[in-house]
């Protein structure tokens, strides 16, 4: 029921924004009284007034409701989260259209949302048709190897793809001894930190790649931070897991040691998704732009993959995976609210960062990008701080040549921003798309997951913050 409504709402939004955008574009370009560029967009000629600080309120309310809803008003939240996300998103949309006369920022945010949900959705559906069975007894060492494998593969199929592909086998393998910390460490490593080595790994790095950061720059410049961080996390996990003796019944169970893989045809779909990531006019000049539509050829390919991989999937595998669109639907609804309501927050941050860019050190970039990436979408956060860092050298993030010059000039800022945007995504359930989906899959399997706050207080703050602090001390202070 909500699926059709959702598509209708999004279509109306697209048509409306395009219409208003066309109507107001000329006015805005000629209007010299307006003060500041809004966000970091392809068209820097679009100038708009900054929103007032109180316009961040819908975003804060939405974040608070995501945090408290499942905890204090669980059933109201389950029934009404789509309406809540839409209503709060509408407040921002109406303000931008009616008061700021700025449809461009909305259209730009909608385009980023489309890229986000098309990638997440296609990886979710394609990996839902793959069944991986690992018939091994779960020991701390085997789990460490599994998480290490997941972290590496996240750089090839993205953190979302790796999470969707590996979370079920990981739970299955540990079914007699599973505890919430298993899932939390999975989120830390496979769903986030693991994917810090390539632009495919995590969306902010991909945005950087589209802007001109060389594909292998991240691998060459982040590996020596990635390896020790991951090793420390694996060691902490090993400690946790060593104390877990599990159920006695697992001792009597026999294991063949076999790894079984079903649904190989969906690997083709996964490959198509990964290749389509590069089908962007910013990467390949022959790719046509569909502007002013807020999506491109890439998103159309990904939507086609969703359709075909679902239609062609093996019914038995879908049943074994208990395939359901609910987890992706939840992400789609919540994140359209998040993408809309966070526009004022991002614009204010971008403005402040640019004003203060001269005073900002690599450490400030690291903590600011990180702490905001834990709660905001890490992709635009990355871009806004990249813009601020480039502002130190009077370079423009919208020009590819400037980005290349910036990378060659002084890469400590880019390294700080890249590492923080990816690593800190693991701080909360909403820090990165797959976090929420992994949580949802685990709950459907019967695992009582910690609440939003418990996740932070019991796991991410005591485990991750000390590690991130050491990373800062060694590499960015």
């Amino acid at each position, binding site marked *: 029921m909500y699926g059709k409504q959702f598509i209708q709402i999004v279509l109306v939004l697209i048509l409306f924004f395009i219409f208003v955008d066309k109507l107001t574009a000329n006015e805005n370009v000629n209007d010299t009284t307006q003060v500041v560029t809004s966000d970091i967009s392809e068209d820097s000629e679009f100038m708009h007034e900054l929103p007032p600080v109180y316009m961040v309120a819908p975003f804060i309310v939405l974040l608070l409701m995501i945090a408290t809803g499942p905890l204090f008003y669980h*059933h109201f939240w389950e029934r009404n989260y789509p309406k809540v996300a839409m209503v709060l998103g509408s407040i921002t949309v109406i303000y931008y259209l009616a008061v700021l006369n700025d449809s461009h920022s909305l259209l730009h945010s909608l385009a980023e949302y489309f890229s986000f949900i098309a990638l997440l959705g296609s990886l979710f559906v394609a990996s839902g048709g793959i069944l991986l069975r690992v018939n091994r007894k779960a020991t701390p060492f085997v789990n460490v190897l599994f998480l290490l494998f997941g972290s590496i593969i996240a750089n090839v199929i993205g953190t979302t793809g790796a999470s969707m592909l590996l979370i079920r086998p990981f739970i299955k393998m540990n079914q007699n001894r599973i505890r919430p910390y298993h899932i939390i460490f999975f989120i830390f490593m496979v769903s986030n930190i693991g994917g810090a080595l390539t632009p495919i790994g995590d969306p902010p790095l991909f945005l950087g790649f589209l802007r001109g950061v060389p594909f292998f720059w991240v691998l060459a410049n982040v590996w020596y931070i990635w390896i020790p961080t991951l090793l420390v996390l694996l060691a902490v996990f090993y400690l946790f897991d060593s104390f877990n003796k599990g159920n006695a019944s697992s001792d009597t169970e026999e294991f063949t040691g076999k790894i079984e893989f079903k649904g190989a045809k969906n690997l083709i779909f996964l490959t198509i998704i990964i290749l389509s990531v590069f089908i962007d006019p910013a990467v390949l000049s022959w790719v046509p732009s569909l502007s002013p539509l807020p999506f491109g050829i890439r998103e159309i390919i990904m939507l086609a993959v969703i359709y075909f991989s679902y239609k062609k999937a093996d019914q038995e595998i879908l*049943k074994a995976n*208990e*395939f*359901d*669109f609910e987890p992706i639907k939840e992400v789609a609804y919540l994140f359209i609210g998040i993408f809309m309501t966070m526009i004022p927050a991002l614009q204010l941050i971008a403005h402040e960062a640019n004003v203060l860019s001269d005073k900002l050190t690599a450490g400030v970039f690291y903590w600011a990008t990180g702490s905001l990436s834990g709660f905001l979408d890490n992709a635009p956060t990355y871009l806004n701080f990249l813009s601020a860092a480039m502002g130190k050298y009077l370079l423009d993030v919208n020009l590819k040549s400037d980005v290349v010059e910036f990378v060659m000039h002084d890469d400590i800022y880019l390294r700080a921003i890249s590492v923080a945007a990816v690593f800190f995504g693991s701080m909360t359930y909403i820090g990165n798309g797959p976090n929420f989906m992994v949580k949802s899959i685990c709950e459907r399997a*019967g695992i*009582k997951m910690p609440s939003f706050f418990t996740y932070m207080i019991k796991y991410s703050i005591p485990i991750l913050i000390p590690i991130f602090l050491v990373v800062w001390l060694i590499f960015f202070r």
Partner: protein
Amino acid sequence: MKTISQVLKENITGLCYYNRIILPFSAHFLKIIVESDIITDFSPSSKGIFIREKEDFTDIYFHEYKGLKSSISKYEAIKMVVVEKGKNIFNFDNHLKIALYLEDKHLVRIEKSDHDILFLE
């Protein structure tokens, strides 16, 4: 009333009407999972669920769902951990994992949980 083993052996189906499931057996319920809801409170004051045992069947009402069929996909199951009446509830070997699949014409297919399905007690 039939036992769970009989129902599973004879492939007897249950029924589903909106938020009500009718099961052709009686049992001690330990855990029920519907979508991401993990229900373990079966007390009379439970807001989410109401279980009523009749002479020939067991009624389960899921108060938080208007229609179970429209909420749960065809690949998804309502999962439950149950113990046959009369058997020792404290013996884990007696804990049965059951999956309920909602089918057309109000039918509910009752299966012993498939090995592949993720279902943790």
